[in-house]
């Protein structure tokens, strides 16, 4: 079995043995998104306008929340150190881990987003637009975020630091992601925005695993 699939399946097994790690980010995502209607004037026209942005911000925050524990348990039980000294490629191993992490957070969030769209009165023609932008955008969020998680794994209070390092890098993804829905609402073509998201994903998919492996080597010595 290749390093990538080995690590992917290992993470999957761990995730399904501890289902709370699957449910928590999703519940967090939904609660954050639903805080906005409570705190804003409840006009359906307004909610419809801001819904896409709200769902995107909630997805970013939910991803961020799930990242803190990403390498932590492996670091505590020593398996992360084993992965680093094993002759197999650390980069590929970490890519497998990150992809599994995404299926547990980003993918589930994206699949759940149409339901949230209904509560924000987003027209059904635009629901798939939001879904497509989330499917293309959330893997980049997890890949880039994992760099921050790898850097802060040895710190006791790393959560805030992950946010400070990673959130600035998330902003372009957020702009393009939420931008797709604003464009679609005005009846403009969205291909450009989706291409931009895909380009970011290609970049993150090829470069982030090296940065993650490098970050782990820096912090764990």
């Amino acid at each position, binding site marked *: 079995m290749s390093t990538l699939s080995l690590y992917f399946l290992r993470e999957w097994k761990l995730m399904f043995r501890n289902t709370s790690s699957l449910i928590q980010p999703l519940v967090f995502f939904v609660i954050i998104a639903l805080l906005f209607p409570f705190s804003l004037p409840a006009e359906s026209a307004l909610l419809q306008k801001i819904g896409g942005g709200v769902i995107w911000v909630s997805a970013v925050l939910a991803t961020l929340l799930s990242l803190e524990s990403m390498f932590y348990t492996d670091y505590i039980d020593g398996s992360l150190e084993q992965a680093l000294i094993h002759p197999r490629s650390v980069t590929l191993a970490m890519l497998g881990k990150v992809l599994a992490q995404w299926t547990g957070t980003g993918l589930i969030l994206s699949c759940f987003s149409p339901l949230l769209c209904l509560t924000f009165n987003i027209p059904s023609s635009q629901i798939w637009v939001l879904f497509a932008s989330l499917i293309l955008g959330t893997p980049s969020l997890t890949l*880039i975020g994992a*760099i921050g998680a790898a*850097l*802060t794994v*040895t*710190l006791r209070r*790393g959560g805030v*630091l992950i946010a*400070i*390092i*990673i*959130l*600035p*890098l998330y*902003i*372009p993804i957020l*702009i393009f992601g939420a931008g797709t829905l604003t464009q679609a609402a005005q009846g403009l073509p969205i291909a450009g925005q989706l291409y931009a998201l895909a380009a970011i994903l290609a*970049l993150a998919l090829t470069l982030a695993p090296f*940065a993650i492996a*490098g*970050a782990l080597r*820096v*912090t764990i*010595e």
Partner: protein
Amino acid sequence: MILFIGFFNTVWDALGRFYHRLGSPREFYKISNVVTPIFGILFLSLSLVGAYYGLFVAPADYQQGDSFRILYVHVPVAWMSLFVYVTMAVAAAIGLIWRIKMAFVVTICSAPIGAAFTALALLTGSIWGKPIWGTWWVWDARLTSELILFFLYLGIMATYYAFEERKTAEKAAALVSVVGVVIVPIIHYSVEWWSSLHQGVTVFAKGGPKMPASMLFPLAMMALGFMFYYGYALFLSMRHTVLKNEQSSRWVKELAQNAEQATHS
């Protein structure tokens, strides 16, 4: 021909030795004794000339009148905000790849200076924007990406101060600055990719600068002056950091003893 090769070899050897000397904290400290004041003098003289020509000699703009003169601070600091980031990231990459101590010092000491330049660019921009655009801030691509750059600088500084072990902290901060470098081309091209309130490329435009020489000269002087300011501030900060990092080494102790004797006698 042989003479030429001999000359080339001598120059190359000298450059190599200079490079290795810069790589050692002790030698850096000696060299910076000489270089730092030179940078300071160049900064002062160039920016004074630039300020004089910019404020008194350059003609007023045909549209914006005298309020355009804030350009002589705004544009150089905006350029520097990117220049410092690239320098910092290149130094970080050099440090990570070739494990050179001094490269990390360049990275760590550049971050606060770059953050200050970015903050100044944002501040002067909004002071300029209020009379011309009628607003302090717009969410346009150039302004937003410059704000992201400011947060990146803060993130690098936060990473450095989060680790107790200095060597880990240096490497971690270097890694963050290398990762963040992807944002630099986005900022640079933002005025071309998205048309917005912020004006397009004026100086490094195709077919030469779209600006009369009388306005361009002070801008070039200010830009060079700020470049030397960066060198000056960086070297001052690096000297401080080197002394702190090497405080238990013999040469720093000797330096401190000599300084103490000089004050007592």
